[in-house]
């Protein structure tokens, strides 16, 4: 093989007063090769990408020896290459597209700027989108997440780049859409000989597309290895830990008991259109139910209805002994002590103005439980229960990590000693190793407190590890349910098989 397309030596990046983010990173990227950059948030993955296309914030110090196509890559040349030979696709396609212009117009503009005369239809077809004029006439908000990401890729390809940097392009997509985008990237690489720098924290995605894997840890290269070898024999301790976090243990077996959740023919709407139809299931006390499905399948609506945060209509509904929709205000408030929820977004899980102790005392105050001293004692107990240090009680949310915030949110949900805990994508926004810790914590709480869990997730691995029963939703209807092991081993419905196929590359 001749000289690599991209060669990076001793790349150091720092922001004005702060410490360096990258401490001398070296790597090569061959022509037509896909190199994955793995690492937790804050390890410097995106900084590499931004340094390569010269989009670091003002005042950043960049130092190092970069070569693209055997020519040195300095500030002026980076600007010349950006959007031509080097293109980039970001995680948030919705924010990267002009919201008020039809995608056909945006694509046409990009093609013309690159001096190409191809029709928009050709460009759309190349990224696996319907070439019919109807699609090109849509606005970004009228597309699905996967479609938007494909449009972004088509825009990036307009200038016929030789290097495509993909920064977390699948992280915001549900597994089906993500699998489609990954297949597309793989195909483009083969057909166009495109070099791909694939930045991700998703091991499945990396395994699927990358030739080599570079593990970044705290701004340094921790390990580089061929993908097969990386997964078969982790080259470093950090790599081994990462893989171990992904490979979770088997779920606990169900505790037999009475049905704590009894739902028959439940229907609910979201924004005036039907979101749930004919949903029926039962869940015994102490069991864990996984609810899976693509984005928009009604998972979160189900969570909100189970919590009576949103109205639902059911032929029969018994949640922790009552139908919340027939209860009067005082009785419903009492009922709420039995059913609690943890949401996805740790960034907004806690009131930014509340200290941790205030957030944890809020449920106790709401229900008038105990005096101040008793409440503070309870706060200490709760922090211990979610394995957080008692000194965190005086912190505010912005002083906590995502995982810590999520633990506080769980502690707050536990403050009233609920019987049912609903987790709506409660770990999806967290780093892999933190996810594993939170799942471990949930499993532990389930055993020690006899909690009944409803675990909503698009991460089938997490569901497999935690839940003894699983329910598959598609377009608001239950297409399959049963014991997790049985459903995952022998999926009956086509949608379940598609979900499993999208997630399993292992």
């Amino acid at each position: 093989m001749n000289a690599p397309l991209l060669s990076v030596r001793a790349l150091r990046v720092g922001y004005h007063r702060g410490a360096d983010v990258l401490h001398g990173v070296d790597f090569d990227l061959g022509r037509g090769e896909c190199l994955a950059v793995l690492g937790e948030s804050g390890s410097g993955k995106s900084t590499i990408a931004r340094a390569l296309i010269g989009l670091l914030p003002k005042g950043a110090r960049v130092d190092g020896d970069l070569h693209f196509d055997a020519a040195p890559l300095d500030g002026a040349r980076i600007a010349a290459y950006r959007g031509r030979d080097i293109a980039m696709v970001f995680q948030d396609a919705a924010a990267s597209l002009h919201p008020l212009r039809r995608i056909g117009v945006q694509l046409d503009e990009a093609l013309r700027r690159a001096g190409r005369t191809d029709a928009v239809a050709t460009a759309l077809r190349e990224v696996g989108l319907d070439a019919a004029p109807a699609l090109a006439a849509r606005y970004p908000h009228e597309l699905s997440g996967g479609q938007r990401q494909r449009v972004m890729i088509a825009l990036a390809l307009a200038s016929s780049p030789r290097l495509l940097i993909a920064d977390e392009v699948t992280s915001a997509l549900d597994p089906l859409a993500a699998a489609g985008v990954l297949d597309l990237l793989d195909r483009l690489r083969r057909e166009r000989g495109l070099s791909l720098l694939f930045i991700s924290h998703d091991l499945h995605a990396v395994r699927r597309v990358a030739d080599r894997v570079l593990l970044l840890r705290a701004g340094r290269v921790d390990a580089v290895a061929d993908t097969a070898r990386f997964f078969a024999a982790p080259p470093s301790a950090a790599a081994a830990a990462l893989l171990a976090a992904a490979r979770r243990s088997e779920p606990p077996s169900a505790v037999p008991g009475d049905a704590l959740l009894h739902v028959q023919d439940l229907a609910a709407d979201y924004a005036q259109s039907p979101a749930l139809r004919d949903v029926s299931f039962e869940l015994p006390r102490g069991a864990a139910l996984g609810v899976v499905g693509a984005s928009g399948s009604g998972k979160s609506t189900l969570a909100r209805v189970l919590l009576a945060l949103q109205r639902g209509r059911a032929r029969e509904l018994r949640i922790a002994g009552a139908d919340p929709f027939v209860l009067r205000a005082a009785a419903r408030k009492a009922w709420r002590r039995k059913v609690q929820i943890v949401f996805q977004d740790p960034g907004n899980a806690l009131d930014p103005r509340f200290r941790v102790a205030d957030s944890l005392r809020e449920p106790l105050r709401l229900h008038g439980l105990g005096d101040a001293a008793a409440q503070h004692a309870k706060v200490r107990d709760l922090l211990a229960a979610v394995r957080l240090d008692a000194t965190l009680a005086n912190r505010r949310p912005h002083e906590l990590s995502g995982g810590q915030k999520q633990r506080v949110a769980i502690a707050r949900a536990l403050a009233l000693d609920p019987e049912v805990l609903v987790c709506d994508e409660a770990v999806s926004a967290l780093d892999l190793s933190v996810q594993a810790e939170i799942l471990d914590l949930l499993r532990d709480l389930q055993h020690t407190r006899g909690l009944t869990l409803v675990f909503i997730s698009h991460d089938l691995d997490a569901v497999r590890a935690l839940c003894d029963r699983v329910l598959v939703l598609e377009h608001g209807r239950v297409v399959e349910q049963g014991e997790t092991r049985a459903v995952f081993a022998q999926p009956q419905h086509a949608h379940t098989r598609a979900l499993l196929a999208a997630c399993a590359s292992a």
Partner: protein
Amino acid sequence: MIADRSLRIAIGLFALLVCASLVGPWLRPFDAWHTDWAQLQIAPGITHGHWLGSDAIGRDVFVRTLLAGRVSLLLGFGAGGVALLFGLAYGALAGTLGGAAERWMMRALDVVSALPFLLIVVLLLTLFGRSSVLLVLAVGAYACIDLARMLRAEAARLRVLPFVQAARALGAGPWWLLTRHIGPNLLGFALVYLSLAVPQAILVESFLSFLGLGLDEPSVSLGGLLAEGVQELEDAPWVLLAPATFLSLLLVAFTLLGDALRARLMVRSA
């Protein structure tokens, strides 16, 4: 960094104008109604003592401008305060309640804002006399409509955030959500909006005074001075220029302050 610098400039300019309007008039031996018969319509200068000149009946423009600035600032902050109080209460309540209550409250606001504001103010001022309290209430009520709308939207955004939903799931009713979560989290937003509402109130009040609908003599605000200045524009332009410059600087200071505050307080995603 940029926000820091413009915040410093804004605060500096603002402090300068406020201090000048508070302290400035005492620097000169004249009061606002002192008539210097010997120096009618004299041009600005140092030697004769009228730094910014005098008007047609010999009153000192420097002192009158700063005193009028004081009045305008007071009326502006008064009206801004009224707007903040009612706008915050109304908008936050509507946004917290959501559903049909929210829709009806906002429709009611639409109806009020469709009324011809100026006509109503003229009517009120004619019926009840031109009092400063009435002026503050009227201008405040006008500004409060926009404030309520914006705070309603922000409250509705907060309402669906996980920490508010979690509080609902814990058993919190609307009052609890309003007073513990949504209201306090709106304050920063309201403060930024206040930096827009106060200059707007100053401007509206100046406009009314310019039309002769403002305060009764002898109180005078910047708008009243502008009206007088226009009368003398050909003979003594400084009578118009001094209050116009003061008003412009005041509005610039508020705009900078609002921008800097917005950059500082409303960082949504870091």
